[in-house]
């Protein structure tokens, strides 16, 4: 039935003003919808890894839109270009808008340089979920991991993002940790930036490559015109 139906709608979605983001729906409406998302995806897969991947995909789609929306609304069309900047953007701004609170913690991994963790005692999507024994390590937080990945990827910081349960002592329910492992190119560009900052501090500013190039072009042109 492709192409059947009425002519294109009259009003363009872009003509509408962007919502302020203050509207709310009940938590149960979201929980019902999310449970349908999980149940539907369960019928499409054979194993847990595949299920997590599909939830992550769904989250990714949300994340990429959230980045666009929030950069526009909260940050006056500016986007974070630093690693720590974007991480704290996810941890505070994104979390606050989506889940109504700042994430419980943002930590740097101790074993690897390029790993970061966002932890949440009771992640919204895991609130009404209990995992059956036969589903092992499955974590619905994969959806949130997808959101984080969607935000980071589209901001130019490609990363592998996964969700894990971490038991806390004296608590019945484990907390959820979103583990972010940045791709190699991210740490390289960060180190290059650090070197640049260092050289600048020593007053040895290498100058931007473009300005060197521009100077060469100007010189050549001056020679030609003589």
């Amino acid at each position, binding site marked *: 039935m492709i192409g059947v139906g009425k002519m294109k709608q009259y009003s363009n979605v872009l003509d509408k003003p962007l919502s302020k983001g203050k509207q709310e*729906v009940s938590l149960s409406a979201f929980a019902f*919808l999310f449970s349908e*998302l999980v149940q539907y995806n369960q019928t499409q897969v054979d194993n847990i890894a595949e299920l997590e991947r599909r939830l992550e*995909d769904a989250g990714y789609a949300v994340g990429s839109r959230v980045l666009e929306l929030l950069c526009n609304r909260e940050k006056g069309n500016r986007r974070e270009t630093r690693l720590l900047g974007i991480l704290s953007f996810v941890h505070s701004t994104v979390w606050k808008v*989506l*889940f109504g609170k700042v994430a419980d913690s943002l930590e740097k991994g101790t074993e690897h340089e390029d790993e970061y963790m966002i932890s949440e005692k009771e992640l919204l999507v895991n609130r009404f979920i209990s995992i059956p024994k036969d589903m092992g390590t499955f974590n619905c937080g994969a959806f949130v991991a997808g959101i984080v990945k969607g935000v980071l990827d589209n901001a130019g910081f490609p990363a592998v993002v996964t969700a894990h349960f971490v038991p806390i002592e004296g608590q019945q329910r484990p907390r959820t940790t979103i583990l972010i492992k940045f791709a190699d190119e991210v740490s390289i560009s960060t180190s290059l930036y650090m070197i640049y900052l260092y050289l600048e501090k020593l007053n040895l500013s290498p100058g931007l490559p473009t300005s060197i190039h521009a100077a060469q072009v100007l010189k050549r042109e001056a020679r030609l015109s003589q």
Partner: protein
Amino acid sequence: MAPVGPRSGDAIFSSIDRVNAELFTLTYGAIVRQLLTDLEDVDEVNKQLDQMGYNIGIRLIDEFLAKSGVSRCVDFKETAEMIAKVGFKMFLGVTASVSSWDADGTCCSIILEDNPLVDFVELPDTCQGLYYCNVLSGVIRGALEMVSMKTEVTWTRDALRGDDAYELQVKLLKQVAEEYPYKDDE
């Protein structure tokens, strides 16, 4: 907390936990997109959305009854008003109105003034046959079935398809006598 008597939709909505509507909207969008990729056919997607709504409806009615304190409605007219004034408000935070009753009071229209599902949405040319909000009709059908009412719910106006509002037609097919819950074909 034992609910005493019916409470207004506003009162319930302000007392329960809520989430940002954008998370809800975008998650719904992700579901629809996933279905479109998987099923590749707009009609199949409409069916699946309706089925999802039905699954939600049969569970949601419990929460509705528990939190609203509504007792048995005397007729279908009251039922429709309850859905529009309490149901929509309590779950989606929006109000709806009921109109266009037929002569014998078994068929009416529920008109949504505001619809949190469709923020940021525009149907591309390839999806013009899609009933984007079909999940809602499924929810109403499922919920009413759990209170012994077989209904048929169809979209009569859809702003995404160029109409000026969102309008659902709810038609009472028959009222079933009390019976044990059974599983619909899955």
